[in-house]
């Protein structure tokens, strides 16, 4: 028998013993009373009077023997469970509300912890920094400029602060067809040989790059990602030392990286060595900024010290090459973690704040429900207090109820959070560090903390609302409820005001993000966004070595694609609007006087075929498109965008002038409309060069058609594979999808915030409805009398309605004021609108008033329909 059982057994025995004792003594008292000469029945009553309430005495006496706190805890628990089960509707609603609040918070906290707070999985990550070039212009302090290969070389040779400096660049390569598998285009990264050493990471299988692998003369080596190894090579270790073909060149597989490794980008699937891939002139240039540089600080060296060291080197290099205007003068660094999560930090924190608001609203709502129930149970509580129920006992019970509610809510919320995170990690592969999001001890502790906090918060509010000791008043009031007690409705209205205020903040935030997203999506790209499908295509240098081969490939491809039924127009360009900045070139204008030393001009550069503008709907404003007859070296024309013309040829006709870029002159033959390189960016000057020159190997095919766009994917793929079976076609996206992808973050954030805001609006409406129904029900008699005395139903309705609207309007004002502050926090997330957008504020106010009115109108209407006779009889 363990102590608990023996304890139970003892207490049972004691109970029986005590009952016998009380009975025998009571009988004695009865006998004595009878001996006094009164009737049997009277004697019993007299004995009971002299003795007191046997049940209470028994309970009090037993309490002397009990294991006080433990048993009272168990009793509170039992009691609370019983109370909650008696009102299942209330319990279910409260648990659901809590589950939503807690679930959202736990999910977001897990994301924030995984993404922002956990250290990077590298060796001693505190010493890792991302290095940038800076100081081209005096005001150039922001930004995160990539580093030129030449500058990296100088930094590496001369610095004394870093134990390792390594290079990375994301690229795309085509993996050739092999073993019955189709060719495919993959995201890949170029690493300098010492990158993995600098990060402190080992391949899971095979070996790391060595210095001997990292030069143009070495034979190609490649590291595979875990995912690619599993998917394409069946996780077979025999893949080591096998040869695969990337862009038609042979590479030996030397290793497989661990599954969690995804530097520099979550989509990276292959790693090759940078000096082996890039031409020497790209690796030694000081003005071709294209690489990411990771540094590991030596022990004891601070980040600023390291940057100062590199800046001296940059300054020296800059001074040695004053004729090149595009050499930066200093360096900048950020912790590596900050570089990786920089863009999602702000939105995540905003979302976390939103979920905190949601949780607060949920707690307020539960507190509100509890207060309402406390009011309904007022008589019971008053009777219990009158019978000697301790004040602390009652609070303890209330807290236990809340703890039960929020613990059940927390358990359910945990499930919700789990589902949400599962969904998130499935749908947002692109998010940085998404793989490091999972539940762990800290998250569990956080959940428990939130549960306890919610219980305390809502429980204490509810408990204090019912702690007044005017028992008699309560009993009186309950017996003649002519006017509802004042204290509780006031408290509930205050809670409601808070709730409405928080809801308004969420609504304003959601409204701002939604409007910003709408603006973003409706921004004029300068080209068609409907009826156009794009496909990414790249021909390997190795197989298409001469300009003639490349030009022929494009000609054949475009001819055959244009011949497909349903194709209205087709074109090819290296980069289409919405695909990003990608490439710029420096140029000079031949007819203009040379620029002073140390200054230069650059603009976005694209290659396009003559019919690209027509296919994309980019208007030709002046002049004409490229002459299709001029090919290869003869293709010496250039087309500029409108902003190019107005920026570099003010008050001058650019047609017929010449641009000099990459050592060649080209004549300007046309001016086309401006386009945006990315959604949300202002249009920048662009120079278009003819694809027929046969220089570029990678680009995007665009097809315009009024038919179903998706149906072109297969025929085009067939054409390409007929022309070259090793050539993958990738990223088959309609223009709309392409733009949608680039605004995924914004739409994601807006959608989440709107979901939170809608939820809280519903919660606030439910709260309002509950309070108004309760108040109206309490005033039944009063309303009955009013109506009986001749009050018009409209008057009654108006009165109840106004009563309900007051906290809503007050909360609205408070919320709008607080939103002014919250809006400032979101400034960085907004595009094209100010945080103080009157339309959003107006819409939120209108929505809230409408919802509040709707929530109040039912109770008000019901009150106005009261039959006075019935209302008065209800007493």
């Amino acid at each position, binding site marked *: 028998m363990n102590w608990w059982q023996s304890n139970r057994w003892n207490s049972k025995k004691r109970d029986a*013993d*005590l009952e*016998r*004792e*009380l009975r*025998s*003594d009571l009988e*004695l*008292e009865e006998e004595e009373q009878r001996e006094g000469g009164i009737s049997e029945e009277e004697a019993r009553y007299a004995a009971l*009077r*002299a*003795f*007191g*309430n*046997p049940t*209470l*005495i028994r309970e*009090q*006496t037993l*309490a*002397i*023997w009990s294991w006080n706190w433990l048993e009272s805890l168990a009793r509170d628990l039992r009691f609370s469970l019983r109370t909650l089960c008696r009102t299942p509707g209330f319990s279910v609603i409260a648990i659901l509300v809590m589950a939503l609040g807690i679930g959202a918070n736990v999910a977001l906290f897990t994301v924030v912890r995984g993404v922002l707070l956990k250290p990077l999985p590298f060796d001693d990550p505190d010493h890792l920094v991302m290095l940038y070039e800076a100081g081209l212009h005096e005001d150039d302090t922001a930004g995160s400029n990539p580093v030129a290969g030449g500058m990296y070389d100088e930094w590496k040779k001369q610095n004394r602060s870093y134990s390792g400096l390594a290079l990375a660049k994301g690229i795309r390569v085509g993996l050739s067809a092999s073993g019955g598998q189709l060719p495919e285009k993959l995201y890949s990264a170029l690493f300098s040989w010492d990158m993995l050493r600098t990060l402190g990471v080992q391949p899971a299988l095979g070996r790391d790059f060595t210095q001997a692998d990292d030069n143009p003369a070495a034979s190609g080596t490649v590291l595979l990602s875990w995912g690619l190894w599993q998917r394409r090579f069946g996780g077979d270790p025999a893949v080591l030392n096998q040869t695969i073909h990337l862009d038609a060149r042979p590479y030996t597989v030397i290793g497989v990286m661990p599954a969690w490794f995804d530097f520099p980008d979550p989509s990276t699937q292959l790693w090759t060595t940078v000096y082996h891939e890039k031409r020497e002139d790209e690796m030694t240039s000081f003005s071709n900024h294209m690489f990411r540089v990771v540094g590991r600080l030596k022990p004891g060296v601070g980040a600023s010290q390291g940057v100062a060291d590199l800046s001296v080197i940059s300054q020296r290099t800059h001074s040695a090459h004053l004729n090149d205007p595009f050499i930066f003068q200093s360096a900048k660094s950020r912790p590596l973690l900050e570089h990786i999560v920089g863009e999602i930090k702000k939105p995540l924190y905003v979302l976390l704040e939103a979920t905190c608001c949601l949780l607060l609203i949920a707690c307020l709502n539960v507190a509100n429900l509890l207060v309402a129930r406390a009011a309904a149970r007022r008589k019971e509580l008053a009777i219990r207090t009158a019978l000697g129920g301790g*004040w602390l006992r009652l609070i303890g019970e209330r807290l236990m109820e809340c703890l039960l509610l929020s613990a059940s809510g927390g358990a359910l919320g945990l499930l919700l959070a789990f589902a949400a995170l599962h969904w998130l990690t499935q749908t947002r592969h692109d998010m940085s560090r998404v793989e490091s999001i999972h539940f762990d001890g800290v998250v569990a502790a956080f959940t428990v903390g939130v549960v306890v906090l919610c219980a305390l918060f809502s429980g204490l509010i509810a408990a204090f609302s019912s702690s007044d*000791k005017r028992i008699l008043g309560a009993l009186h009031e309950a017996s003649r409820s002519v006017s509802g007690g004042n204290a509780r409705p006031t408290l509930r209205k205050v809670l409601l005001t808070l709730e409405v205020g928080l809801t308004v903040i969420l609504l304003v935030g959601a409204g701002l993000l939604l409007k910003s997203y709408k603006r973003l999506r409706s921004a004029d790209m300068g080209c068609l966004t409907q009826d156009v499908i794009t496909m990414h295509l790249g021909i390997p240098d190795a197989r298409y070595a001469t300009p003639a081969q490349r030009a022929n490939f494009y000609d054949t491809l475009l001819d055959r694609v244009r011949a497909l039924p349903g194709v209205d127009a087709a074109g090819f360009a290296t980069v289409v609007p919405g695909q990003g900045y990608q490439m710029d070139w420096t140029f000079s204008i031949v007819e203009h006087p040379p620029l002073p030393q140390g200054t230069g001009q650059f603009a976005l550069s694209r290659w396009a075929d003559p019919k690209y503008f027509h296919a994309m709907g980019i208007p030709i404003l002046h002049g004409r498109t490229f002459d299709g007859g001029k090919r290869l070296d003869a293709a010496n024309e250039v087309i500029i965008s409108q902003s190019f013309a107005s920026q570099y040829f003010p008050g001058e006709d650019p047609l017929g002038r010449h641009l000099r870029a990459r050592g060649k002159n080209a004549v300007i033959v046309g001016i086309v409309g401006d386009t945006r390189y990315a959604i949300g960016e202002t249009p920048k000057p662009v120079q278009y060069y003819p694809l027929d020159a046969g220089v570029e190997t990678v680009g995007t095919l665009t097809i315009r058609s009024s038919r179903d766009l998706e149906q072109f994917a297969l025929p085009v793929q067939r054409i390409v594979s007929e022309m070259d079976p090793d050539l993958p076609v990738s990223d088959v996206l309609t223009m709309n999808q392409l733009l949608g992808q680039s605004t995924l973050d914004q739409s994601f954030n807006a959608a989440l915030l709107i979901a939170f805001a809608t939820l809280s609006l519903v919660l606030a409406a439910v709260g309002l409805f509950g309070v108004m129904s309760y108040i109206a029900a309490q005033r039944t008699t009063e309303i009955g009398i009013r109506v009986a005395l001749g009050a018009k139903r409209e008057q009654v309705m108006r009165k109840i309605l106004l009563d309900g609207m007051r906290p809503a309007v007050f909360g609205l004002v408070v919320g709008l004021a607080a939103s002014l502050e919250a809006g400032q926090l979101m400034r960085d997330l907004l595009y094209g609108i100010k945080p103080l957008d009157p339309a959003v504020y107006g819409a939120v106010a209108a929505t809230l008033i409408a919802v509040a009115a709707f929530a109040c109108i039912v109770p008000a209407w019901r009150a106005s329909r009261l039959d006075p006779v019935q209302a008065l009889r209800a007493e």
Partner: protein
Amino acid sequence: MSSMAKQAQQRIGVLQGTLDMLILRTLLYGPAHGHQIGKHIQRTTNEFLQMQHGSLYPALHRLERRGWVVSQWETAPDRNREFKYYRLTAKGRKQLVAEESQWKQMAEAVARVLWPAAEES
């Protein structure tokens, strides 16, 4: 906690201590069951201490738990039925002495405050 609740608790506290002492003193005459103890206290105070006998039992059990009294079922000589008799222990006797002297000290102290003239004379 409101002052009202505090007051109530203090009053109970004083009563409790006094009641314990009165029970122990009653048991000094010999073993007795609850009903007898109640009756005795009421009689000796000339019905001044009005109380329901029932309220004795928590006090009796508290004393038993502290080891100041022990209980046993015994047949009452006049009723031919078993009652639960309480008996003072040695520990209980000591406690009674201590409480008595404490009570005396307190009563004297209170008296000195209330009737200072009496001491002067």
